[in-house]
């Protein structure tokens, strides 16, 4: 990847993380940990990959994103706001009465949200339906479904995995965010879904592994995904829950709780320092 582009992506991803913390802090509830672990992924998709138009969010031939791990809506909202789908200030109204931004994605109320999600395991089925519609219409769009590693404990995910492979939905890419933690603890200790790669492989998917926080590797993975025919693609991304906020990293207690005033300040200081450094490096 071109160094200048990579730097730009890192800057954008940092702004996305700032948006996540702003939103969850103001809401006083929400899911920062898993939002931070997919911030780089969504930044890459919306900056480099997706054919979407913020002025025409329902454009029929657009690429679709289904956030199957819907509780990580703050990451999606932050990316959509920065991409111009709606005003940035909406982030600060997350989860409040009368707000556009619901606790989990609402396709009816939020421009850029392609599917209402939140109940785990359901988004991937809807994504498969969208991909099937694309095949029936010979449309060129792609559908990206983002799943949690805990989420794939849901049986419906594997019904969908079977369906997508059977119907050769090579326009469907499922990204599994393997941060290793779910509400009750480590995924390997709660009810292990491992090995994830072997499972998708056995279900007939083309499987790619990816470092979730390295844009060179993200680019490699998505480039590979585009070369696959007749099979859906599963990208298993190894990520860090709470990425780039030191006290949130790999700490399961940040799955679903908001920072208090002091923690908010600490988190924002870390992110702003990172942003300043990145901007300085960009100038150099």
């Amino acid at each position, binding site marked *: 990847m071109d160094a200048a582009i990579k730097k730009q992506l890192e800057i954008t991803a940092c702004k996305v993380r700032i948006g996540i913390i702003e939103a969850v802090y103001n809401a006083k509830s929400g899911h920062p940990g898993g939002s931070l672990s997919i911030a780089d992924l969504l930044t890459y998709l919306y900056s480099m990959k997706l054919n979407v138009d913020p002025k025409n969010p329902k454009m029929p031939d657009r690429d679709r994103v289904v956030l199957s791990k819907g509780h990580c809506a703050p990451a999606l909202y932050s990316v959509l706001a920065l991409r111009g789908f709606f005003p940035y200030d909406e982030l600060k109204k997350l989860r409040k009465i009368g707000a556009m931004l619901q606790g989990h994605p*609402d396709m009816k109320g939020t421009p850029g949200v392609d599917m209402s999600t939140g109940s785990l395991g359901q*988004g991937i*089925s809807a994504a*498969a*339906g*969208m991909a*099937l*519609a694309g095949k029936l219409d010979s449309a060129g769009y792609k559908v990206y479904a983002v799943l949690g590693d805990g989420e794939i404990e849901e049986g419906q995910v594997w019904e969908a995995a*079977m369906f997508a492979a059977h119907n050769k939905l090579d326009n469907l890419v499922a990204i599994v965010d393997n941060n290793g933690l779910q509400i009750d603890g480590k995924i390997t200790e709660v009810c292990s879904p491992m090995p994830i790669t072997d499972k998708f492989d056995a279900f007939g998917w083309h499987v790619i592994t990816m470092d979730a926080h390295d844009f060179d590797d993200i680019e490699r993975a998505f480039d590979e995904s585009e070369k696959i025919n007749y099979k859906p693609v599963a990208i298993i991304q190894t990520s860090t829950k709470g990425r780039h906020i030191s006290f949130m990293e790999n700490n399961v207690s940040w799955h679903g709780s908001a920072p208090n005033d002091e923690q908010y300040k600490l988190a924002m200081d870390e992110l702003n320092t990172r942003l300043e450094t990145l901007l300085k490096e960009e100038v150099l």
Partner: protein
Amino acid sequence: MDVLIKKATRDSYGEALAELGSVYDDLIVLDADLAAATKTGMFKKAYPERFIDCGIAEANMMGVAAGLAASGKKVFASSFAMFAAGRAFEIVRNSIGYPHINVKIGATHAGISVGEDGASHQCNEDIALMRTIPGMTIINPADDIEAKAAVKAAVDIDGPVYLRFGRLAVPVINNAENYKFETGRGVLLRDGSDITIIATGLMVSEALNAADTLANEGINARVINIHTIKPLDRDIICKAARETGVIVTAEEHSVIGGLGSAIAEAVTECCPCPVIKVGVNDVFGHSGPAADLLKEFGLSSENIAEKARYAVTLK
């Protein structure tokens, strides 16, 4: 005298889908390995490229239906009522109901008339479940004519629709020549002033038979067919409550949460009156021939007439 013709509404469903397939080239039909039983096989035969078998995976099927409909397709998703409304309830609620997506759910083998398969497959809870989903239209047609018309009407409804069909051949009571289906409108089949019998699905013909019996005894029963359980035609129901003072409801469904409950909820708000429910009395069914089961569980004209005789004493 007219010859009594009988037909299962699942056959009507299959035939109507096959007809609609030629009208709408964006109509997609999904099934979960039951095409031969739900009769979507008729559509599959005519339009194989637009028929998707999802296998024995109803949860995924409902989600796929949502994704197809969100991409502009007209989608019918079919299975037995037990699995469409029961197993897949939460997917119907969250992936179809909450975003108010244009998916039509064709649920066959509803009620106790499934027969020999027994309690595991006799779904007497689906209307109750579907009624709780905001924006869900629920249609439970009485016969072949009504079922076909309902399927065609459902295509034009904006939002999710739950269509309920049966396995058992039931009498055709409507006249195809002058039949007109209006979603959300109750149908006055017989006027009367002493009592109102409000029925849905295969219980409508039983209600008409009960009204004949009652007429011979000097009880003048009004009969209303409620094919659309949601949205409910409150006007025709409240008018009946006001004018006849007592209501008997009849449905092939649990007495908890179905037509009887909906009617009772409606009249308590407009004109409180006794509502006596004929339905499955909070028990599971069991195996046996459908006709015998209907009698055993009180889903008969005889039981409706008996309840009506009692109901008029409450006035």
